[in-house]
């Protein structure tokens, strides 16, 4: 068993029961294959950095779990089929799972953008 982390973006128009069903569905896919779910983190709807499937927003869900490598293939295959998932990414947690704080909605670019009007200013 290795620790993995899958982050996926649910279609922004999928809310309420439909949204919960999507999350439960993928939790179910993992548990059906003897994966050990460590954390399911719902980030909520946030702006995407670029449009994905013509959507400017998306609902992020992060799942951390321990599973065998074969589980990933099945999970990603099912995500590709599901039209409510607009993007996903799985990474291997090399140092195992460690709890991290939840990132909040974008509040940065205060000191970044003010003094950076010219990129090639050297």
């Amino acid at each position, binding site marked *: 068993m290795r620790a993995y982390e899958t982050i996926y973006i649910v279609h922004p128009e999928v809310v309420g029961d439909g949204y919960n069903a999507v999350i439960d569905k993928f939790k179910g896919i993992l548990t059906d294959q003897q994966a050990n779910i460590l954390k399911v983190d719902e980030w909520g709807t946030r702006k*995407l*950095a670029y449009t994905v499937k013509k959507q400017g927003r*998306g609902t992020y869900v992060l799942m951390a779990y321990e599973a065998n490598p074969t589980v990933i293939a099945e999970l990603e295959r099912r995500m590709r089929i599901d039209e409510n998932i607009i993007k996903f*990414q799985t990474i291997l947690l090399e140092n195992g799972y460690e709890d*991290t704080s939840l*990132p909040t909605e974008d509040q*940065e670019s205060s000191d970044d953008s003010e*003094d950076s*009007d*010219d990129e090639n200013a050297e």
Partner: protein
Amino acid sequence: MSYQKPSRPATPRRRFTRRKGCRFCGDKALKIEYKEIRTLRYFISERGKIVPRRISGNCAIHQRRVTEAIKLARNIALLPFTAGQSVD
């Protein structure tokens, strides 16, 4: 580089050179992760490009981790590949 833009006298020249030395070596608590876009924002330019090491001041090890984290964040639409697109 001695090239000076005459039209912009008041622009601060030292844009990314405020902090000398690697931020991550100085502050061990600072994590490099694709989810921590607040930290990573500092290392991308306005255009969305990764800031080179000579400007960011990172050491080789940490610059590599930053680069990898930015690329992961781009993949999942947390950071832009380019600022050219308009998102409503």
